[in-house]
C-alpha cells in the first residue's frame, strides 16, 4: 500500500487548502482556482513517478499548477476569450471569513496586477517561497524576480492605499 503514488496522494490531500489559496491568488476567481487545482492534481497523480521523494512536493505541484494556468491563458487567448467576464460579487465566497472587507480588498488588488507580477506575489508573499525558490519555479533569474516583486509591491501599495500602510 505504501507505493509512491499513495504517498503523493496523501500529501496532496494535506496541501489542498494551500493549493486553493495559491490558485485564488493566480486566477482571480474561485471556480477557475478550483479547476486549476483539480487539473494539477490529476496531472500530478498521472506523473507521480516524476516527483523525487525527498524533494519538496509543494514546489512540484505548484509548478504544475502554474504550467496549467499558462496553458489555460494561452487557450483562452486562442479562443479570443481573455478572461471570463467577472460578475458582480464574484469574489464573495460562501465563507463568512472571506466576506471580511480587508481580505476582499487585498484579493482584488492582487487580481488587478499584470500576470507576471501576480504570480510573483502569489509565490513569495502569499505562499512564502524564498526568492531563490520562486525564481527556480518560474525559471527566471533571481534579479528578474526581485524587480518584478518590487514593481508588484509598489502597485499593491498604491492600490491598497495609505489606510493599509499602518497595518503591521
Amino acid at each position: 500500500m505504501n507505493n509512491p503514488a499513495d504517498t503523493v496522494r496523501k500529501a496532496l490531500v494535506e496541501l489542498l487548502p494551500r493549493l486553493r489559496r495559491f490558485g485564488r491568488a493566480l486566477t482571480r476567481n474561485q471556480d477557475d482556482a478550483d479547476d486549476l487545482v483539480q487539473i494539477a492534481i490529476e496531472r500530478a497523480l498521472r506523473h507521480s513517478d516524476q516527483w523525487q521523494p525527498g524533494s519538496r512536493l509543494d514546489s512540484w505541484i505548484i509548478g504544475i499548477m502554474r504550467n496549467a494556468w499558462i496553458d489555460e491563458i494561452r487557450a483562452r487567448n486562442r479562443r479570443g476569450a481573455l478572461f471570463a467576464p467577472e460578475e458582480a460579487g464574484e469574489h464573495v465566497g460562501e465563507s463568512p471569513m472571506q466576506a471580511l472587507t480587508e481580505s476582499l480588498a487585498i484579493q482584488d488588488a492582487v487580481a488587478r496586477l499584470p500576470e507576471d507580477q501576480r504570480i510573483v506575489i502569489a509565490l513569495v508573499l502569499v505562499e512564502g517561497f524564498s526568492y531563490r525558490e520562486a525564481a527556480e519555479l518560474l525559471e527566471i533569474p533571481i534579479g528578474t524576480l526581485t524587480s518584478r516583486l518590487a514593481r508588484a509591491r509598489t502597485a499593491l501599495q498604491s492600490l491598497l492605499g495609505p489606510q493599509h500602510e499602518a497595518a503591521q
Partner: protein
Amino acid sequence: MKFSDEILMAYADGELDAATRADIEAAMTSDPELAASISRHRATRELLRRGFEPILDEPVPSRLLDALAPEAPRLAGAEVRPLPARGAATAARPTRRWSWPEWGAMAATLAVGALIGAGLRIAPGPLMETRDDGLVAAGELSRALSTRLARDAAPGAEIRPGLSFRSAGGDYCRTFVAGRVAGLACRDPDRWRLELLSTLPEAGTGAYRPAGAALPGVILEAVEARIEGDPLDAEGEAAALERGWRD
C-alpha cells in the same frame, strides 16, 4: 539614498546575507526614511498573507477530495460493472468546466476507482470492508441496510435502502443508494455482502436523487438475475427487518 528599494524589500523579506543586513541596520539608525521603507514592505507582506489566509479555512470542495481518493479495492467474487465511461466520468467529476486534452483518455480508466469515493460525504473506508471473499458493508451502510425501511429513508439521507427481495438462493437482498453510488447487497448470516456497485447517472451538481428514482440499469439487471418472485412490499420488508433478515 544609498540602498535601492529592491534591497530594502529584500531586507524586509529576510533575503539578505548577514553583511548587507548589518550595513542596512547601521544606516537605519541615522536614516528614518530607510526604516519607514522597510516597515512599508513588511506591512505589505503581512497584508498579503492575511488577505489570503481565510481561504485556508474554507471547506475543500468534494470534487478535489474525490480526485485524490484512493483506488477502490478489487472486488473478488463480486460483479463490478461501472456505467459506460461517459456516465461514470460525469458522475465522478461533476463540475470541472475546462476542457482538457487528456480528459477523454482518463475517463475510461477512472470508472472503478471513482466509483466508491464519488459523492460520499462519509469516507469510503467505514462504509465497506474487504474480506477474503469480497466486499461487505460496514459502519453506516451496514446499519442502514439492517435497520432502515425504504419508506423511512429521507430524500436527502446519505444512505437510502431501495428494493428488498428474496433471491433464488433464499437470501434477502436490498438495493441502496449512498451518495452517487448505487449498490446491491445480499444478506449472509452475519453481514451484508456487496454484490454490485455502480455510479448513479448524473443528477445535477450536488443534487441527490429523490428516493425511488430509477436505479442504474446494471443494478436492475442484477436484481432481475437474482430475484425469486416479487420484491417485498412495505409489510414484507418490515417483517424481514424485524426478523433480522433471516427466516
